[in-house]
């Protein structure tokens, strides 16, 4: 049996109760299993199914709660109440919405490619769920602790774009295709800074396993690697197409983008996947930068994880409520000219620091942080300067001029228009009466 399974306390407990005292359960004493001998394979399957069921339903329940919470928070940010009619504090609103979505008519456009059209929701939901398989929610609470966990996350999250393209292409809608093209542009641009931002963390932790990364965070990596956090957070926002990078769905431009032709539960699955991506991104940020489930002892690790997750979610929602959307070219420019450079700086600096302290202790981590913060601030400032100076497309008459000159009394093109009443009106205004 793989060590990865054995570390998983949930799986091991179920398996050992079912299969009894076998080689895998040496650490615990069970007189006999519920299943007869030789049925270990069944115990294995049942334990695996139980865990999958638990995680999938847990995530879906979390999405329902998140939708409610996000709408309540939107309300608070916008000086209103948010959903409050159905159930205590409006908690059942999402449930009602889910039921309504399920009972809507399932429309497929006449010109759509039916197979791909129906496949797209599956394609988007599967990777969104897969990400959760490597995230440790607490001590011993995870599906699998892969030794390439970070790589797995990077690979799986980029699959979302494939399904967006499938959805857009199959629905034979021009607006949807525009949206899908934007989505691909975002993926290509932001995958690189996102991956490079994680290089610094991998160097510090010396492993790609999320468990090891958490173990290495005696000081949370948000303090040690501020630049990596900055880049990763923004790139993750772009990756899941949240404001200010919500170009894919750009409500005021593309209506709903690639979702234009989807109705009923197919739309519902896209919607769920979007919120799952939000939760998974927050979970990844929590794990990689906020030391995951680690905290003080009397409070259980799951609580720590949840609290940090909610804090990250709050920041994401706050971003969404505050920032207007960027234009496509600006978003791409931001990735290639801004974030990419920042990640390179981060990698170089981290590499030098690792060369000085190969196995950093807690105090050495603090010293790294002390070096990294000024570098982060200076480089962000410098890159911002670099980004801000170049102008796009049309000349800007007075973009950098804070004083707005008041135009002269003269009509600029006297030959175009003769203003007869100029002098008379002038007199009446100056007179004041």
């Amino acid at each position, binding site marked *: 049996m793989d060590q990865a399974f054995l570390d998983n306390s949930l799986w091991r407990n179920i398996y050992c109760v079912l299969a009894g005292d076998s080689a895998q359960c040496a650490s615990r004493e069970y007189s006999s299993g519920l299943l007869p001998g030789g049925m270990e394979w069944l115990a294995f399957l049942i334990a695996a199914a139980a865990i999958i069921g638990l995680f999938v339903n847990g995530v879906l329940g979390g999405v329902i709660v998140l939708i409610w919470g996000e709408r309540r928070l939107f309300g608070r940010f916008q000086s209103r109440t948010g959903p409050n009619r159905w159930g205590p504090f409006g908690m059942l609103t999402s449930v009602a919405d889910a039921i309504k979505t399920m009972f809507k008519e399932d429309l497929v456009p006449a010109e759509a490619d039916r197979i791909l059209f129906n496949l797209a929701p599956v394609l988007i939901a599967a990777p969104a769920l897969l990400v959760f398989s490597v995230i440790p929610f607490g001590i011993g609470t995870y599906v699998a602790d892969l030794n390439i966990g970070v790589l797995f996350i990077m690979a799986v999250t980029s699959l979302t774009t494939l399904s967006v393209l499938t959805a857009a292409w199959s629905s034979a809608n021009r607006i949807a295709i525009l949206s899908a093209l934007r989505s691909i542009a975002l993926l290509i641009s932001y995958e690189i800074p996102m991956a490079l931002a994680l290089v610094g963390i991998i160097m510090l932790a010396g492993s790609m396993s999320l468990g090891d990364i958490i173990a290495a965070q005696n000081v949370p990596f948000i303090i040690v690697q501020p630049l990596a956090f900055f880049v990763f957070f923004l790139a993750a926002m772009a990756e899941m197409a949240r404001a200010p990078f919500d170009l894919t769905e750009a409500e*005021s*431009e593309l*209506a709903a983008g690639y979702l234009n032709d989807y109705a009923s539960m197919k739309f519902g699955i896209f919607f769920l996947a979007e919120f799952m991506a939000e939760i998974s991104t927050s979970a990844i940020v929590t794990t990689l930068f906020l030391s995951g489930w680690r905290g003080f002892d009397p409070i259980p690790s799951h609580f720590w994880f949840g609290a940090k997750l909610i804090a990250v979610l709050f920041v994401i929602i706050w971003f969404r409520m505050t920032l207007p959307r960027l234009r496509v070219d600006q978003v791409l420019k931001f990735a290639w000219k801004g974030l990419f450079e920042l990640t390179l700086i981060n990698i170089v600096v981290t590499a030098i620091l690792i060369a000085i302290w190969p196995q950093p202790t807690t105090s050495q981590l603090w010293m790294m942080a002390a070096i990294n913060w000024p570098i982060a601030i200076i480089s962000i400032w410098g890159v911002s300067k670099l980004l801000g100076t170049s102008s796009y497309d049309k000349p800007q*008459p007075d973009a950098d001029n804070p004083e707005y000159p*008041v135009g*002269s009394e003269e009509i600029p093109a006297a030959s175009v228009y003769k203003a007869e009443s100029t002098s008379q009106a002038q007199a009446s205004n100056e007179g004041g009466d």
Partner: protein
Amino acid sequence: MAIKTQPVTVNLGPQHPSTHGVFRMRVMFDGEEIVDVEPIFGYLHRGSEKLAEERTYTQIVTLTDRMDYVSSMLNNQAYILAVEKLAGIEPSPRGVWLRMIASELQRIASHLVATGFLLQDLGALGTPLIYAMRERENILDLFEMICGARITNSYLRPGGVFMDAPEEFWPALERGLDDIVSTIDELEEYLSGNEIVFSRTKGTAVLSPELLINASITGPMLRASGVDWDLRHRAPYDYYGRITFERKLHTASDNYARYWVRVQEARESVKIIRQCIEQIEPGPVRPSFDDVPRLLRPPAGDAYAAIEGSKGELGFYLVSDGGISPYRMHVRASSLINLTLLRDMLIGGQFGDLFVTFGSVDLNMGEVDR
């Protein structure tokens, strides 16, 4: 190998979340760049001008409410000025002051809506829009206090206003003005350093002043290009000659300049209202029915009166044949005329800027189609 590209024609509207009503555009894209735009409107046509030909002069006031439904008071004012000019009515002073206060309040409300929706089109997901609408709500409460309705006011009558403002209106107005200033401060605080808004709006959809003048465009759009053209100052109507105010001009003539001019004008309107409160005098709010009968029969002739509306010069042209209803009414709808340059503004721009530019024109489809 060069990649072969082909422009794509996309139909936006009439049911689109950002077209400010029922407006349709046939847009040709090359990638994200706009190659061609064809605006199509008329989905909200209600034949107001024709309907006016079979209504009495007082009844038409209710029609004007529904033209530009975010600035009904200004519509009322423009129409009433035309009627007064046509019938030779001398308005009563208190009524004129009251309608000036009402129309300046309406101008603030309209500019708040324009700013809020511009930010909504920028993708700020409703937050600044709701802050702006929250303040507009206070203004609508003031309208409810003086005339019993919030949107379709029908407050003005030939010769003045319908009814004097109640006692509790004046303290509420003072409070409301302070609130308005603080809300504008808040909006500006939100925007003043917002680089995303800057990078989205500055330098986009630039129009030259010559083009604007040739296209007969007025209002904040023209003033954003540095042309000092404000009817309240150039051809003062009502008692604007007794009021001093600053004309806020910007020279950039881009989307940001249009937003900036609107916000500054809202501030100036607050100052104008404060001056009106100082100068208002007691007396009747409308002439007696002996002077201005309920059923007006203006002498045969025509009259054109224009005001500085929230979106530009708003004019009413009335022709009378001596009967109880006008022979012809024509509205110089500033929204419609401001729309004419949409193509020049959009071509060559980015798809992302399409609706921002559209929002910066501050259209009202009710006024465009009438």
